[in-house]
């Protein structure tokens, strides 16, 4: 019983770390470009499918495939902003149009996966194999690896945001767009970069979770909802808040799945969302906006 609980908590923490990465990407895009990207979940699937496409052809191991997947995701994100979001920006009601366009993109991508890869789920080989035995309690090396990779990505993302010139430009645009332009920051480039980085973040999340949860054409929709619930629960614009929120929700999800079965996990997410919005709409540690 105790070991089982420990197991559940461990899986919650591992998933939580990956959720944190994906929620950070979503908060970044919404905070900087003010676009709610409905295709976010489809980019999650894109990460999984790209990795699958290369790995299943014995192209090489993860070490070789990952950089290619990252590059592909970066281009996809950059292109989406350039080709779909930017033309809308000058229009009246552009936020609604962007919502519709990204929803169209999501459905386009999902159907593309369906046509190219078929309706059945695809599995990816495990990142690492092996077990560690801690006096009777067994931990999979893969879980630890996923956790460590996610934490590394998360911290390098924070370092990038806070300590590089581009990162600071991104921050500046999100705080005051006009001010940023006055000091010579190229806002269009920042928008496109933010989109690209967020796409990479969620896509990597897709690769990390694929060995455990498979890749399917419609698998991204749950991720879209989850990433957004984390962002709302943690507080808009607070990276720290969404980090806590990701772990809390990861653990809650694991516990609910363990006690009531996995059909009910989505209800748990929804309940958390509703309760947050009713009691504290600004989230755990955020400000409205």
């Amino acid at each position, binding site marked *: 019983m105790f070991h089982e609980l420990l197991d559940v908590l461990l899986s919650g923490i591992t998933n939580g770390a990956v959720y944190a990465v994906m929620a950070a990407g979503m908060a970044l895009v919404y905070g900087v470009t003010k676009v709610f990207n409905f295709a976010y979940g489809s980019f999650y699937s894109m990460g999984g499918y790209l990795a699958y496409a290369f790995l299943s052809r014995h192209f090489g191991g993860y070490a070789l495939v990952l950089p290619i997947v990252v590059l592909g995701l970066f281009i996809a994100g950059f292109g989406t902003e350039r080709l779909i979001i930017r*033309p809308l920006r000058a229009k009246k009601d552009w936020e609604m149009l962007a919502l519709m366009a990204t929803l169209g993109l999501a459905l*386009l991508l999902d159907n593309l996966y369906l046509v190219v890869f078929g309706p059945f789920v695809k599995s990816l080989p495990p990142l690492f194999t092996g077990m560690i035995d801690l006096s009777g309690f067994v931990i999979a090396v893969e879980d630890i690896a996923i956790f460590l990779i996610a934490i590394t990505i998360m911290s390098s993302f924070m370092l990038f945001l806070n300590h590089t010139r581009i990162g600071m430009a991104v921050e500046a645009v999100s705080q005051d767009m006009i001010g940023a332009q006055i000091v010579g920051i190229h806002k269009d480039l920042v928008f496109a970069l933010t989109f690209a980085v967020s796409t990479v973040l969620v896509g990597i999340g897709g690769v990390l979770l694929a060995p455990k949860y498979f890749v399917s054409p419609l698998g991204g929709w749950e991720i879209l909802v989850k990433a957004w619930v984390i962002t709302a629960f943690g507080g808009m614009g607070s990276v720290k808040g969404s980090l806590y929120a990701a772990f809390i929700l990861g653990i809650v999800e694991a516990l609910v799945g363990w006690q009531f079965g996995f059909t009910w996990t989505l209800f748990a997410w929804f309940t958390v*969302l509703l309760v947050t919005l009713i009691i504290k709409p600004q989230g755990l540690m955020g400000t409205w906006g």
Partner: protein
Amino acid sequence: MGLSMHIRKDLRILIVLFIIVSILPLFCHANLRVMNILITCMIWAVVAASWDLIMGFAGIFTFGQVAFFVMGAYASAIVTRTLGITPWLGILFAGTLVGGIGILVGLPCLRLKGAYIALVTFAVHMILEPFLKSSIGKALGTGGPQGIISIPPFRLGSYTYSSMELMPWFYTALIISFIALFVIYKIIHSTWGLAFIAVRDAEDFASCIGINDFKYKLAVFGISASLTGLIGGFYAHFVGMLSTRTLGLDLFLILLVMLVLGGIGRFPGAVIGAFITILISELLRPLGTYRLLIFGALVIILVIYMPQGISGLLFPLEGNNLGTKLKRIRLKNSQKKS
């Protein structure tokens, strides 16, 4: 005077459209497939126009319309099967119930900002499928993962509607959908509709002159959900069986195409959009899964290059802009003088 002429224009388009549709069975009543498509068009016209009412006029980004449709379908199917009441009452019950659910969903939503509403309503859509399949859903009579088969058809006196003779279905759908669309038309041209347009075009000014649109928005949320639920109930009895497959994203996508193609906030654009989309969808059926791929691309292209949809092409006029209305009245007055 100029104003009243304009108000009637969208109703005129709607009436002409329905008259054309109503005489179509003279030529194709024997062709079950064509009749089926026409009935489907009218069902989806109501869903698309209800969605447009809430999204295009009230300015609320909801993505729960398909969920409301499916709720209505299940509600009517369940009450007619378990309680044995007539489907006519069943669809009214579905409309009332889903309207109530709409208000419940709307209450927390309307205090939120745009993208949050989109998420909450979409989450309702997402959790509906596991709910209908779950043990609780099964206890309510949703049939779980198998869905519901053998939903009773309508009955009029001693006549029972049959799937081999679609004329009665057709005219019933025609009447129900016309009434539903007329309700939407009435709302758009009521004080509520004016309040929405005021808030949409000049939010600060509208609040300055004391327009509080919250209760209107909540009411419209309920009415939009209710009409969708009602027509969902009709759909259930027409098709005769239900499963959670209806919640798949392909219907969502087709509905989105209807709205974008018809023009958002351009009643009765969504109705025209529904007819054209169903027609295109049927023509593209041989393409299989590629059809949805084309639709996805179509949404993006339309949003970027034709955000007003077909309405923008057919009726590229002032829309609901008060300034241009005044200009036109002034122009008419000056013509009279000279």
